[in-house]
């Protein structure tokens, strides 16, 4: 009978699931990892709830890193941030395949394996979205001097984009709010960035913009409009390159 390990939808949750699944010694073919939220129960399967454990997760990520290399770990971690019902199982399969290989570092080249292919594709999706977001985020300066940005990404991007901005703007106080998940990443001047959950957003504070802000916004909109060449106008191309779903939070597309 199949055993299903239900894990939490987070990097730690999935890695703990991988650990428990492996430790159960039921044979890889008899094990399936699923996410708690999207689970529909089947009759002929045994269900086990995975309790997220930071230590177990750490062991898995260390093993992946040491045996299969940094690149594989990055792919797997990105896949864990994606929105997909079957990502947990794909990650499990990838680790199983990887550890069985003679050259374990080459696991991401085995694209003919469905699990690896899935991880590869998810990783690519997350990477592209993060890449887009690094460009499309717009900060606004609040009265209290904080640079504030709101995003609504499909994948859980804050862990990927926050280091980028921490490196770029080390001397600013900034925060990015993920609307879809209710998460904040907060960075104080010359400090490390942190991820904050369950924090209520204070609408008043984020609507109070600094004195200079409106002027800069107008300057930017002016630049955005004059830099386009009329004879070459191509709204289809524009929409292809900057999809509509991003535009809600991009300043120059909102009047």
């Amino acid at each position, binding site marked *: 009978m199949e055993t299903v390990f239900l894990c939490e939808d987070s990097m730690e949750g999935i890695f703990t699931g991988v650990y428990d699944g492996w430790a159960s010694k039921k044979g890889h073919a008899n094990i399936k990892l699923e996410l708690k939220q999207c689970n529909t129960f089947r009759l002929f399967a045994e269900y086990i709830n995975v309790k997220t454990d930071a230590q177990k997760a750490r062991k898995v990520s260390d093993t992946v890193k040491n045996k299969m290399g940094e690149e594989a770990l990055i792919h797997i971690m990105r896949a864990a941030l994606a929105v997909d019902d079957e990502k947990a199982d794909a990650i499990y399969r990838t680790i199983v395949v990887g550890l069985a290989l003679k050259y374990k570092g080459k696991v991401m*080249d085995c694209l003919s394996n469905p699990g690896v292919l899935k991880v590869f594709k998810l990783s690519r999706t997350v990477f592209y979205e993060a890449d887009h977001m690094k460009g499309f985020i717009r900060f606004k300066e609040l009265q209290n001097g904080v640079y504030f940005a709101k995003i609504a990404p499909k994948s859980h991007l804050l862990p990927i984009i926050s280091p980028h901005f921490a490196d770029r703007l080390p001397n600013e106080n900034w925060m990015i709010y993920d609307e879809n998940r209710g998460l904040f990443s907060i960075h104080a001047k010359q400090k490390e960035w942190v991820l904050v959950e369950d924090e209520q957003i204070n609408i008043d504070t984020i609507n109070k913009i600094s004195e200079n802000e409106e002027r800069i916004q107008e300057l930017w909109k002016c630049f955005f409009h004059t830099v386009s060449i009329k004879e070459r*106008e191509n709204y289809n191309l524009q929409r292809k390159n900057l999809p509509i779903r991003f535009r809600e939070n991009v300043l120059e597309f909102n009047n």
Partner: protein
Amino acid sequence: MNLIETKSQNIFNCQTETKNKMPLMEKLAVLSDAAKYDVACTSSGVERKGDGKGIGNCVSSGICHSFSADGRCISLLKILFTNECIYDCKYCLNRVSNDVKRASFTPDEVCELTMNFYKRNYIEGLFLSSGILKSPDYTMELIYETIFKLRTVHHFQGYIHVKAIPGAEKTLVAKTGFLADRMSVNLELPTAEGLKQLAPNKNRKTILKPMRLIQNGITSNKDELTVYKSAPRFVPAGQSTQMIIGATPENDFQIMTVAQSLYQNFDLKRVFYSAFVPVTEDKNLPSLPGGPPLLREHRLYQADWLLRFYKFKAEELLSEETPNFNVLFDPKCNWALKNLDVFPVEINKASYDILLRVPGIGYQSARRIMKARKFAKLNFEDLKKIGVVLKRALYFITCNGKMMYATKIEEDYITRNLLEAMDKKSYGIGDITYKQISLFDTQIQGGCSSGNSLFM
């Protein structure tokens, strides 16, 4: 250093006293409008982490921050320092004889805009070009002063792309190179004759001189960096250039040959092609009733990619007999149709260089095929997953000795089938009926002699 600053400030104060009253918004509108015909807006080629004290970093792949209504990427704050130009180039909006609104920034204004835009993540950095104010030296000095301020006063570590002004003094260009990430000198027109005709104040020699200077700077800097790791870096993202397409009668073969020799002899990172947009009227300029030659520009970029990443040579793609690209097919597909004796190739055996030449296989797919076939024999299903465009590739490949469908390896047959599968609208050829295709066939075989009518 002090000398330059005080000198240029003095000149500046007396010269712009009246003009400084123009509000920043208006200046920005004038000077970004004047800069937009420069196509280079990439922020790629250099990877630099922030030092933790200043502001900014660089990502080697570059980042696009927005896309304007023409669909082009906005990555850098692309502005002219001034559009008060003493030259009279016929294709240019800012030529001295043209009646347009003139404006000049001050270095501080450029810094203010750059820093404020950068902090809000509007831009990846600055692209600073300029009209020739007073003299090349004077203009270069102003550009230098601006980016010197950005780098030292504002501790800006983002991307900076500046123009080297042809005719400016050697040391000025060299000094600027140590502050900028990318420098470019525009070739403007593909041949010396074209330049003579349309840009009476410029000549090929003065353009190539700073280009060579930057190239030598980069080479000697590389030697230096191997010995002293922390030596200051000179133009780390390399240099680029731009050619205007369609203003003068050069054919595609001439343009590609020029681009190829620039890549080979000047180590350029990029050559940009800019479809000519008639912004001024002159008897020497062509009229373009069909709008700018965008399809031609597109084909040139495709061929440029083939030169840089697919190991093609200009002579393989075009020749004296067929000097222009095919309107219907991209250059690689066109090459494949003319060289059917090479095909079909076996996916599980062919070398990387051969895979690169198959239509429908890009360099990423080719690389993935090389890796994946070490673990298992690949079939068509695998190729699809890898990202190969099978509807184009299927005529040119075999998997384990078999083709995907029974197809003839015959030019007419493949041409017809590829045209069928093509999204005709995106190529701007609209409703082509079956009958019309057979008419087109003869023209396809002759390269694209008729294609010109689309461009002229």
